[in-house]
């Protein structure tokens, strides 16, 4: 059984109470949620459903909006790609932040330091991630100080991204060239070896390839879907058999 979208294992009780009651609309609870977001950044937990409630609160009360909390939520959502969390967060942001030159009279890139600029930068990262263009993701991340600022609050961001990428790789591959994986994880040499061996538990083989143990997702075994036969389907036949017998 998967985990329902509205469930987070580490959610404190007071947050849960707010989320399930009408207090989630109370502007006074934004402070509580902001605190909770900061906590998630700090101790590497994640609660999308609660974060969406904060974004909704901002949506209703734009004057309360704290850009920092918004971008932190988006960065946290990046760490769980390719789940729909990031787009779901975007849906609750004010429409102008994504507006491109095509739809507005305003021309040129958004003003420096604005929320729109930050959101559009993060959207670029998200696009690269969901397109599995990991090498581009890392180089974009390094290309601009703004990125470093945006992810600074989220503890262990790079490590989490590497783990996420490794998960994707383990679902799709049985063996991967070292050079390819190096560019995807943005690690080389001893650091690369350490990550692959200790964090992922994978082995290098003689040809300079990384071998990934088989799991349910990467074995690519043909299956035959068989039909489920329920006893009830034979009900009429059995009834008939009784009648004939009598």
């Amino acid at each position, binding site marked *: 059984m998967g985990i329902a*979208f509205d469930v987070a294992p580490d959610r404190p009780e007071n947050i849960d109470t707010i989320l399930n009651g009408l207090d989630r609309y109370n502007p006074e609870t934004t402070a509580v949620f902001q605190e909770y977001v900061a906590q998630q950044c700090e101790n590497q937990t994640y609660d999308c459903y609660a974060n*969406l409630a904060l974004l909704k609160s901002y949506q209703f009360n734009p004057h309360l909006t704290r850009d920092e909390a918004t971008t932190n939520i988006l960065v946290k959502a990046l760490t769980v790609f*390719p789940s729909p969390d990031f787009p*779901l967060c975007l*849906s609750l942001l004010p429409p102008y932040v994504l507006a491109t030159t095509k739809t507005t009279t305003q021309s040129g890139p958004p003003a420096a330091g604005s929320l729109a600029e930050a959101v559009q930068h993060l959207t670029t990262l998200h696009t690269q991630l969901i*397109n599995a263009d990991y090498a581009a993701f890392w180089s974009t991340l390094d290309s601009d100080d703004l990125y470093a600022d945006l992810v600074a609050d989220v503890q262990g961001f790079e490590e989490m991204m590497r783990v996420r990428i490794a998960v994707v790789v383990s679902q799709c591959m049985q*063996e991967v060239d070292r050079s*390819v994986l190096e560019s995807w994880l943005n690690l080389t040499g001893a650091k690369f070896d350490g990550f692959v061996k200790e964090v992922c538990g994978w082995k290098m083989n003689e040809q300079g390839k990384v071998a990934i143990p088989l799991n349910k997702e990467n074995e690519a075994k043909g299956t035959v879907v068989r*039909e489920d036969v329920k006893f009830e389907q034979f009900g009429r036949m059995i009834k008939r058999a009784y009648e004939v017998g009598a």
Partner: protein
Amino acid sequence: MSVRQAPKYQQNAPERTIDDDSDVEEEALANDYQEQVSYEDGGDYDLDRTGSAGGGPQDLHAQLVAAAQPLEYGASIELKIQSYDSYCALFHYILNSEGPVDIEVPSYYWAWDVIDEFIYQFNSFCAYRQRLAHTQPADKEDDISILRENPNTWGCYSVLNVLYSLIQRSQISEQLAAKKRGEDSALYAGEYGSRNLYQMLGYFSIIGLLRVHCLLGDFSLALKTLDDIELNKRAMFARVMAANFTTYYYVGFSYMMMHRYADALRAFNHILIYVSRTKNFQKNAQFDSITKKNDQMYALVAICVAFYPQRLDDTIHTALREKYGEQLTRMQRGGPEALPIFEELFRAACPKFISPTAPDFDNPQLNVDPVEHHLAIFMEEVKNNMFSPTVRSYLKLYTTMDLKKLAGFLEVDAETLRSWLLVNKQRSRQMRHSEGGLLEGDVVNSSDLDYAMQADLIHVSEAKVGRRLVDWYLRNLARTY
């Protein structure tokens, strides 16, 4: 036009499967239809609409009637604001009188119509206000100044407040939860909830919330709202055609925006099959207006099927081919040429999204149409999936394949193809609902094609569907009786 003008159609027919006895079914439908006609002719609340609803409880009946009536097309802004005020007065009276208000409401339809019309007016008011703020047409300056002065009219908070208050007063959530546990819901109804008026308004307010949350772009909360309602044909909303239709549309749409295409398709299929089976009994003027929403849902089905290839019910499949055959083929082929089709269909089929706050009249460029916003987000998803059909169509032909060779066929470099393969693999894993709340589900492989890469060698595997013998066996056996 919207489902709000849909036929007031009642349906109590039992749950049916494809091979049901169709005579029985049609008879049941015919009976329902009779009921519906008599309802429409009965004039239960078909009284003349009184323009001003400002009076006290004396003309309550007139107010109740007015609340369920659509505003005339092109109503002036004053009329829209006035309508808001009379809704406020009515709901205030119902919610805040001393003790429950003692009136019997005409029918289920009435309660649905009130909530439906209330939200419809809210939705169109917000859309109108946003459009004016964005374009600032010179001939509408009067309207703009009125809107500037009344930023809280049709405010989001007050609309939500009404819906939540109706739900709380009627203790409908508690009642539904009790019913789910198999207990007597009357024990949980309380002073208000035991009355028809509150019970029905509360119930349809839940559906109303689903809709409002979806319009505001909060898709997960929209689905969460339905936690207490069981989606099946015995549910109360299923008795009112328009409510039934609306519910599945918003459930399906919310699922789609959460990238759960299998679940979205299930919701759309359910209601579309239902409509196609009953349409022969709905040949009245009102049926025309449901047709538009119906077409919108087919457009959404086309989008979802393009994302998530699936065998559809024959009726749906035929209708889909008829309405969007060409678009579907192009979307299923994928690639950049398909993007405008996705965009066109999404625009045609999405709800009229709104922003919750009053627009900024001083900065027109900030008031971007929320539809554009959601479209942009959705198109990211489409672009992400753009090359999956191509990849799949090639992989189907092989059991093993060299990455570089396949890249040569596709005229892309090996690194790009490697990324496409990762993307397609991730896309094939989707959350699918099996039981419990609508937000629950399991991650399943949605594709019959699977593969894994051993460095540059792609191993392809296929999930074949075995022969279905039981049905064949039983049918032939029955013939020998």
